[in-house]
């Protein structure tokens, strides 16, 4: 796993890039609009830092540009030309490294892999005793908090949660540093 420091750099780089792409429309933005641009570009940047290998990050970007999303155009502007974007769908099931250990030896047929990509996770054959304890309302709530969490189960849900939290923390750290640095600059 990449060190947290390089994750922050990756996030910051993506974020600045996204903000630059919105530069033209910024002259007379209201505080509310500016907040929206800052937040959306930060969220997209943190998802992009994962380079499409996790389900939640693909979910975040896919949802941002979905038809019917009010800020779709803004998201597309931030993401830049389609040629520079990362893949957001059709990824091998269980793309995260540790899932490969528990996948069965049988090589799935191509059609079954595509059919399962929406689910983002290999299904556990039988719920273990611990998984049984992770059911119910709390698991539902957790799934509602992770992008595309409703498609995840058991092991993959926890793995995605772990990754999501790590990236969220990196995002908060960088944004906090920027906020304190901006305050210092503004005071001068």
């Amino acid at each position: 796993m990449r060190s947290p420091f390089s994750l922050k750099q990756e996030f910051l780089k993506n974020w600045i890039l996204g903000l630059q792409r919105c530069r033209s429309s910024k002259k007379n933005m209201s505080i509310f609009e500016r907040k929206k641009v800052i937040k959306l570009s930060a969220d997209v940047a943190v998802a992009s830092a994962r380079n499409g290998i996790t389900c939640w990050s693909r979910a975040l970007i896919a949802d941002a540009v979905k038809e019917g999303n009010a800020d779709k155009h803004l998201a597309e502007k931030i993401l830049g030309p389609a040629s520079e974007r990362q893949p957001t769908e059709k990824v091998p099931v269980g793309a995260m490294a540790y899932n490969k250990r528990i996948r069965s030896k049988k090589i799935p047929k191509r059609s079954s892999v595509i059919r399962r990509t929406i689910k983002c996770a290999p299904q556990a054959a039988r719920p273990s005793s611990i998984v049984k304890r992770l059911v119910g309302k709390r698991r539902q709530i957790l799934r509602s908090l992770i992008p595309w969490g409703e498609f995840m189960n058991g092991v993959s849900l926890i793995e995605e949660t772990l990754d999501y939290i790590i990236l969220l923390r990196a995002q908060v750290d960088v944004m906090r540093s920027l906020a304190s640095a901006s305050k210092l600059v503004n005071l001068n």
Partner: protein
Amino acid sequence: MSSRRSRQSTAGVSSISDDQIIELVSKLRQLLPEIRDRRSDKVSASKVLQETCNYIRSLHREVDDLSERLSQLLATIDADSAEAAIIRSLIM
């Protein structure tokens, strides 16, 4: 033959899942500020889940608050401005 194989792989998957899940839940515990500082090892999986949800929600709120503050602090989002250059050099 095939039933034996499938029975074996089923048993294999569920017992690995148990250990995997224990490992992952403990990793989750490490990340949660509430639970990590407690000495006790006996934290239930459902408590971990609950703290995880609370933590994620608080992180979301922080991102929102910080976005609000930043939009007030940054007069423009001109990433080429002198301010942005100073900020960048302070953070990196």
